[in-house]
């Protein structure tokens, strides 16, 4: 009986933790946290190639839906080491939401002084 209660409490705490996270934290941050190249650096790479908000977001969405070595902004060394990610299983709406959060988090505009 004690074990059942322990299991229920553990599942409850885990579920609460999961549902308190947004779509970006749940689906992107989990894996990228373990990469040597941070999401910030990846964002800067995208910015260096695509410049604007609309173009960057469109490029990100396109890549995540159809990952391709040719489309990647990362170096060949990085791709050789970590490979190309799998195609996203997020819905289009979830993907756009995640990208928007990503843009807002790492955007340089309001951080320059």
């Amino acid at each position, binding site marked *: 009986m004690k074990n059942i209660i322990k299991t229920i409490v553990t599942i409850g705490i885990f579920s609460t933790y999961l549902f308190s996270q947004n779509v970006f934290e749940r689906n992107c941050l989990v894996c990228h946290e373990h990469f040597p190249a941070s999401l*910030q650096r990846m964002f800067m790479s995208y910015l*260096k190639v695509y*410049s*604007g908000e*609309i173009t960057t977001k469109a490029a990100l969405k396109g890549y995540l839906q159809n990952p391709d070595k040719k489309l990647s902004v990362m170096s060949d060394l990085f791709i050789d080491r970590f490979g190309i990610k799998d195609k996203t299983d997020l819905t289009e709406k979830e993907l756009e939401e995640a990208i928007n959060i990503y843009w807002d988090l790492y955007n*340089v*505009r309001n951080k320059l*002084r």
Partner: protein
Amino acid sequence: MSALKNRDISLYLNSEKQSLRRFLTLYIFLVLALISLLSVSYYKSQEKLMFSNQRTVLSGYATEQVKRLKILHHYFPTRYKYPRDRRFKSAIYDIERVLIFSTLDNNHVNMDKVIYRAGNKIHFVKTLDDYYLGAMYLILEIDEDRAWFRDTIWNIIALGTIMLIVLAIFGLFFVRLFLKPMKNSIELLDNFIKDTTHELNTPISAILANVEMMDKSIMSEKNIKKLARINIAAKTVSHLYQDLTYLVLGHQRISKDEWIDLKKLILNRVDYFYILSKSKKISFQLDLEDSKLLIDPVKIARMIDNLISNAIKYNKRNGTIQIVLRDEYVLISDTGIGINSDKVNSIFDRYSRFTNSAGGFGIGLNIVKSIADEYNLKITVSSVLGEGTTFRVEFPKGNKK
């Protein structure tokens, strides 16, 4: 002889001056247009030169700023301070032309130009190959150095003035060269009139004397009419002869001023022109009061003759001529063809005629004007096209009794 020549020169001097004035006005206008065009072209070239010089300097600044942006891009967000330089201000815009960061004083930027003036600033636009911090456009801003502008304006004023003076002198030289044929033509006409005048006197006098002497009582009605026609023709030629004589010799004679009874003179001259006016069925309406004027009798006769002759010449058939004499003025009006308002000022010019259909040399009113000018008589002309013309001659108080 030289005095006569001087008189002749002064007569056509007016028309020469007028032509000279018109030509010079047009010439100066064209020269000013040319100078303005050259000035604008010079100003534009100087402005282009200034932009070219600034562009070289600003390109160097832009290269430095791009290097700084590259470093900042690499270290962002550890470093977040936008690179500043005391020599210029700058801004960065992304590919969608959305502002990323700016230190510009004037934020009205045009990314379609490389270098341009924005108020009192100069903007230089550099398009980046790598979009560091997302920047595709780097705008550099510096204060505009107005020294080139002041120098350019001074050069335009100085060179423009010199050019205007030089071209005006050339213009004057050329206009005299071009007017020479006109001058020669007038001299030729004057000489022709002088030569023919001498040959007219004797035959005209003979015709008029004999016409007067003929006994009309024994003539048939038909012959009397024919004689009247001869009389009119002879008087017309006589009138022309007197005008020509006055023109050629009249200026030379010394004026012998005396008190002239204008009423008596006008009645006499109306009587003289009666047959001529009758031929066109023109009637006179006289409203004459006593008036006396201190003037040369030959000259005032020429003046009145010409005004009446003019009123007959340009009148309609069955028209009227009204002559009003008052102490201070005389009015001579006709019911003729009238003159265009734009030609009123030129009717006193020598060889100027109302129309080409009425004949004459166009010297009558020129004589009237020269006599009026000599005695300070003020002449005003009012005319309505198709209704008639009125000449008003005002007498100066000093010449009045």
